């Protein structure tokens, strides 16, 4: 199973699973801890992976949302995400994929330009969030958003699907030349 598909498994009862993909383990761990601190009616599971494809010998639940984490300070992390994207089935990109860029606050340390990740997110038609996990004030709201997105993607919010959410998020952006 080298390509991740969104609907190839049965969902677990009241379970929502998010997969965080990124090179910096400590960062992913911080996000995971913050997410699990949130009050949530669903049972949350967080899977952390350095890159895709995932090792095939693990027995894992259905993945409801994939967040690709790019550290703007490291071209290595961007390249890793770009490589990993190839192992995700196209149907995942209907609202079940998101990008998270960290490190934008320290401009002088950024070796990846903001516009690069913006373009990446736009190419894959997926939402882009910015976060500086070291700052508590940023981390908690982002964790709350991720939990909410995850619940919607897992189908736990009646009346809202992942695709609904995606179109809601898209229409709030300025229309680009390609969209018009």
């Amino acid at each position, binding site marked *: 199973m080298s390509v991740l598909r969104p609907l190839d498994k049965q969902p677990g009862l009241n379970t929502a699973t998010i997969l965080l993909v990124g090179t910096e*383990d*400590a960062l992913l761990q911080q996000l*995971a*801890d913050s997410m*699990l601190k949130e009050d949530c009616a669903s049972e949350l599971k*967080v899977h*952390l992976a*350095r890159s895709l494809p*995932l090792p095939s010998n693990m027995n894992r639940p259905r993945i409801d949302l994939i967040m690709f984490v790019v550290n703007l300070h490291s071209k290595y992390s961007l390249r890793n995400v770009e490589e990993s994207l190839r192992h995700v089935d196209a149907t995942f990109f209907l609202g079940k994929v998101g990008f998270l860029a960290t490190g934008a606050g320290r401009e002088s340390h950024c070796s990846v330009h903001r516009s690069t990740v913006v373009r990446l997110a736009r190419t894959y038609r997926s939402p882009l969030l910015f976060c500086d996990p070291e700052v508590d004030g940023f981390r908690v709201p982002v964790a709350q958003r991720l939990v909410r997105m995850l619940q919607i993607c897992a189908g736990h919010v009646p009346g809202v699907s992942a695709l609904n959410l995606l179109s809601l998020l898209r229409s709030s952006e300025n229309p680009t030349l390609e969209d018009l």
Partner: protein
Amino acid sequence: MDETLVEFIKRTIMKIPITEMMPILKAWDFLSEKQLQTVNFRQRKESLVQDLVLLCEERRASIHDAALLDIIYTQFHRHQKVWDVFQMSKEPGEDIDLFDMEQFKSSFVKILQRALKNVTVSFRDAEENAVWIRIAWGTQYRKPNQYKPVYVVYYSQTPYAFTSFCPLKSNMPLLGQALTVASNHHKIVKMDLRSRYLDSLKAIVFKQYNRTFETHNSTVPLQDRTLELDIHMDSRIIHENRIEKERVQRVTQETFGDYPQPRLEFAQYKLETKFKSELNGDILAERKEPLRCLIKFSSPHLLEALKALAPAGIADAPLSPLLTCIPNKGMNYFKIRDK
């Protein structure tokens, strides 16, 4: 007492932070207990220094006493200087003479005085058969400049000497010659190794940094150790790439070991190589001369930073051998040319 000498003593004592005043004066052992008892160490620093200078004048301090104080201050503050490493060698087949410290010292001084009439040389013995040498340079016609001395730490049972960065560079060949001849060596070579941390340089050069002491804890295998970490983690967090993480930890441990790394502040790579490009018709690749490029890695603790790179996910493991060979080769200056 000479005015310049008084001024020199005053400035040397001024450098000493108040908290270190007593230990340094005690190590100096020049002012007597009775004299020290008459001084009020709680007053403002300027007045304290003036009192101490007066006591030194009473005792008729000489330039050598002042130089000794300077050595002790530098020994307490060795990180303020940048140290180079020199390696001496004997002719192959030469007999290994027994080292005589007194003979070394007198020979060293004689060589310097023969070349430059005016030079102040002071010695202070240290542990591990080492001697700290302070040299203040003058010329045939000018008295030595006490404010720009060079320090040499020579480990007499080894061919290694560490010298502080000398602003008067033209005297370095003479210094090298004096060291070599006085210690019965034939050749002296400057190593491509430089740092502020004298103890780390020592550890690298004497290969003392990789001693792992056998204890019960060190025999716990890697797998059991990672299991301990998992118990504290939330069971709702699953690491997909655990095997890869363990591999990275293993490779890092094999490369860097379990011990604390010696402390260096930078590694510098001078590249003189042709530009290699995958694109055809790249202008840079068509150049006949090699490209010159300087890459410098700086860090408060370079080797620990390199050790942390792969586990933090910032670089692949194993790291480039150019980075990991630094303590083994005893170099942090590299020149890289095309083969």
